[in-house]
């Protein structure tokens, strides 16, 4: 059993907290927004309940939730051996969080950045322990996805990689090693696809349903790029494209204006009840 800190109680933070608690770890979930913490705990309860439906296995919801405590500041993470950071995909948001974590946690604590695109070496530079900073790109929904991208930064130590692999193993996650590069494998490719799919809708070439139908029915993908964008979160897609655009200074990553408009309108996808498509789980994000 490891004492695990999880910073950021959005969809990914809740999913990581769920997976870690399910694996028997004691979890401290931190967010500055009390409403987000409450929503995250409700999400974990709901997803534990749905486990039987989705995996055929029942989960002891009370035991899982009982291993998660919540806190409003990273000062509560002083005893954690591993911290998984899941805050908003913006460097100006992430950087101060890493500096605060560096002050709050013991020197041996490993910081795992769960980022869609920001290079891990850059995250490490915000701390005095770049050898103990590593990237793990978890996939959504975290408890249902068995593989992750594992990204050591330029200065990440072999010991950190080893301990992180062990931690992932306890959660049944298979790490796929990727060199540190903005967007890694997944989002270098996926974000371009999602962005171009959004342009098709923006330009009126096709409806969102038609775009996804081509991917599902012609290519055999289990879901289309726009349903995937809704699952990731339209805001996160936009921020990831902005990170890629800024990092590579390459216009091929210019975000489709429709993504910006949807983000501003609160149409953030599945977590908000509406994105390119409508969902029954309406209002979760605001809850």
């Amino acid at each position: 059993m490891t004492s695990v800190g999880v910073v950021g109680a959005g969809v990914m933070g809740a999913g990581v907290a769920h997976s870690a608690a399910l694996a028997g770890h004691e979890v401290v979930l931190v967010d500055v927004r009390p409403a987000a913490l409450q929503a995250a705990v409700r999400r974990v309860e709901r997803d534990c309940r749905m486990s039987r439906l989705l995996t055929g296995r029942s989960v002891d919801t009370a035991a899982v939730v009982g291993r998660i405590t919540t806190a409003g500041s990273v000062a509560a993470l002083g005893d954690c051996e591993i911290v998984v950071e899941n805050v908003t995909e913006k460097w100006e948001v992430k950087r101060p969080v890493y500096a605060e974590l560096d002050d709050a946690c013991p020197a041996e604590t490993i910081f795992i950045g769960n980022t869609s695109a920001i290079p891990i070496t850059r995250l490490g530079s915000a701390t005095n322990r770049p050898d103990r900073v590593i990237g793990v790109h978890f996939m959504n929904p975290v408890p249902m996805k068995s593989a992750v991208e594992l990204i050591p930064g330029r200065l990440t130590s072999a010991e950190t990689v080893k301990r992180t692999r062990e931690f992932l193993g306890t959660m049944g996650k298979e790490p796929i090693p990727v060199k540190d590069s903005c967007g890694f494998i997944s989002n270098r490719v996926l974000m371009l696809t999602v962005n171009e799919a959004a342009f098709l809708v923006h330009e009126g070439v096709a409806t969102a349903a038609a775009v996804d139908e081509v991917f599902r029915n012609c290519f055999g993908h289990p879901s289309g790029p726009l349903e995937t964008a809704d699952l990731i979160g339209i805001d996160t897609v936009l921020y990831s494209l902005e990170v890629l655009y800024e990092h590579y200074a390459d216009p091929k990553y210019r975000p489709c204006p429709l993504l910006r408009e949807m983000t501003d309108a609160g149409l953030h996808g599945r977590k908000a009840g509406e994105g390119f498509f409508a969902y029954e789980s309406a209002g979760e994000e605001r809850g």
Partner: protein
Amino acid sequence: MTTDPRAELRSFLGSRFPQVELTDEEDIFALGFVNSLFAMELVLFVERTFGLEVPNDELTLDNFRSIKSMSELVQRQTGQAQSSQATS
């Protein structure tokens, strides 16, 4: 509650999949255009619309496979609620 849940279920599925005409017995998971996340939405829709909480032992894909199976689930649950109210 005595109304037939099928109409509500048909209308919900019809709004989400306007391109498909579903029969009440059709296995929606076998059609290939819904995934496990949609199964979760179905549970939330059924619970919200019919004001019930599906017990853990009823949370199986089989209960959400078709309009007919969901309708039977709703009737089982609302029937049980009514009989427990009648005896309390």
